[in-house]
């Protein structure tokens, strides 16, 4: 895949004010590449929610993004606490977010459902005490 673009973002721990920079950067790259705005919107929503989750639930992590002419894959890897019950976490409205986080406007429990809804493929690998890797793919 010679014509694929690989990007990496380090998401820092608890830095709410910077959350969204990685998704914003991917958004502007896709825009420059002339990707359909509806697709860009899907990518932005999915990646932003994933980015926020890494900040509020997992002390940050690393996001790898691979863009090919056909699709974009986002791999969000953290060394956070892991997710005990993925099916439960996937339910709209389920959230373990703290009061602090809620006061900032997060913690509606819509993140994972949005990520699922706006990506074409999503996979969660998680282990308690080890971390979580969320892989999402959006087709162009």
């Amino acid at each position, binding site marked *: 895949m010679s014509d694929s673009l690989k990007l990496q973002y380090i998401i820092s721990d608890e830095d*709410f*004010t*910077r*959350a*969204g*920079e990685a*998704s*914003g950067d991917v*958004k502007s790259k896709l825009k420059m590449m002339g990707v359909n*705005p509806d697709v860009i*919107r899907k990518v*932005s*929503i999915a990646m*932003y*929610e994933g980015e*926020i989750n890494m900040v509020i639930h997992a002390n940050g992590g690393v996001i790898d993004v691979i863009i090919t002419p056909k699709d974009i894959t986002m791999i969000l890897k953290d060394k956070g606490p892991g997710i005990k019950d993925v099916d439960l976490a996937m339910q709209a409205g389920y959230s373990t977010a703290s009061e602090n986080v809620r006061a*900032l*406007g*997060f913690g*509606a*429990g*819509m*993140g994972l459902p*949005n990520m699922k*809804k*706006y990506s074409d493929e999503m996979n969660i690998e998680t282990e308690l005490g080890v971390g979580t890797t969320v892989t999402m793919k959006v087709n162009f």
Partner: protein
Amino acid sequence: MTVNELKKIPEFTLLNEGDMNKEITRPFCCDLLSVAMSKAPSGAAWVTIMGNTNALAVSSLTDCACIILAEGTSLDPNVVHKAQVQEITLFETELPIFEASLKVYELLQG
């Protein structure tokens, strides 16, 4: 109608000028960022009390036309500066969310 027209609303104070020629599609009210993230229509005049940088991120990711911070909500100190850097148009008003949106709506209806 462009964002620039909102300057006509006396109750609105302009905190930062982004692209004032952006077209407003409709007013949109929401304070939960995940909900705004998935529901804000592109070109929205987004009325919220969330005066933080995360609201700025949501606004730019969803292509809002501008943010209107209602209810005289308090702003995080770096919000205006970040809005300048990201070129996001920011208004502030003492009006409650409903009244602020209504002002936008009425202006849109002409």
